[in-house]
């Protein structure tokens, strides 16, 4: 593995990191990849089968390898987690592009607004089977959160196209409380899924 053009500049910041910094970044990046892959599977082909390994592990590995080797510049304005997430996003998008195009595209590093990037514009479903699948998935979430006023409000706000800060304002909650909602939503859906099986 060869050192890239940003190896030495990245090393200056990398040398200041402790294990806890890496652990937080790995945990956030892993969770991000999980959601991103779910989203990309909605939006089109994701060629996870071509990767030759577990897709989450594959992208998580790439997200720090490219910083350590200096292939990607660790931009000063981003924390480690955000830089790793940006790399993972780019690699996932590139894989989707490869799946869509036979020739593929040359590797491009794109810096976009990460908060906008979370919200993909989903292509319309192509088949009746797709339509049924998405409706069933959404119904599954709505059933799981039924009876919880906060979560019901959250999903209704999403349906109206509201984003994180707008929803937080509407619900008058702080970021940390928002995170509790995230945990609650995941827990509710998991519990519901296991009770259905």
């Amino acid at each position, binding site marked *: 593995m060869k050192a890239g053009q940003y190896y030495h500049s990245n090393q200056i910041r990398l040398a200041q990191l402790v294990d806890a910094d890496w652990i937080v970044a790995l945990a956030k990046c892993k969770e991000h990849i999980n959601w991103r892959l779910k989203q990309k599977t909605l939006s089109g082909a994701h060629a996870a089968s071509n990767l030759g390994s577990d897709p989450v592990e594959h992208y998580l590995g790439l997200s720090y390898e490219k910083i350590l080797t200096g292939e990607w510049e660790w931009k000063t304005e981003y924390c480690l987690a955000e830089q790793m997430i940006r790399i993972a996003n780019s690699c996932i998008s590139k894989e989707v592009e490869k799946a869509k195009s036979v020739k593929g595209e040359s590797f491009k590093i794109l810096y976009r607004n990460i908060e906008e990037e979370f919200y993909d514009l989903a292509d319309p479903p192509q088949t009746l089977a797709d339509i049924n699948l*998405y409706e069933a998935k959404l119904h599954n979430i709505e059933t799981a959160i039924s009876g919880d006023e906060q979560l019901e409000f959250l999903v209704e706000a999403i349906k109206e196209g509201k984003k994180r800060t707008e929803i937080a304002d509407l619900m008058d909650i702080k970021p940390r409380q928002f995170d509790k909602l995230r945990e609650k939503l995941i827990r509710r859906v998991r519990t519901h899924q296991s009770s259905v099986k």
Partner: protein
Amino acid sequence: MGIINAKQVLSDIYGLMMEINLHRADEDVLEDLKENPDPLIENHLLKIKQLKAKLKAEANRVLFQKAIEQIKILKQQGIEEIKNIFNPEEQVQLMPLFRKFEELTKDDEAAILEDQELLYFMEILKNRIDENPEQ
């Protein structure tokens, strides 16, 4: 709910989960992992340490090769010629390092990387030679 919207709503729910995840407080993430350790993260932390060590070894090897090449070039130029690039005051200041450099033998070359002082001196020499190409 329209057919297309179901897909978009799902996509937006996943998007919101990603956004909340990025903004989680570090201490909350660490607390969660303390309660529910994740072997995958521990495994990747180990891989990061291994990769860092591997890259550092490779960087040192490249640095060593460059240092050896630089010594050869500097010695070919002749130490007296190199001294002339510096003014008398600088020559006095750098005298101990010039002496060290002159006495450098092939056996010492392997230890060069450990000698930060000598590497620094070589960097000064190289920069000064680059600034004075006529030398």
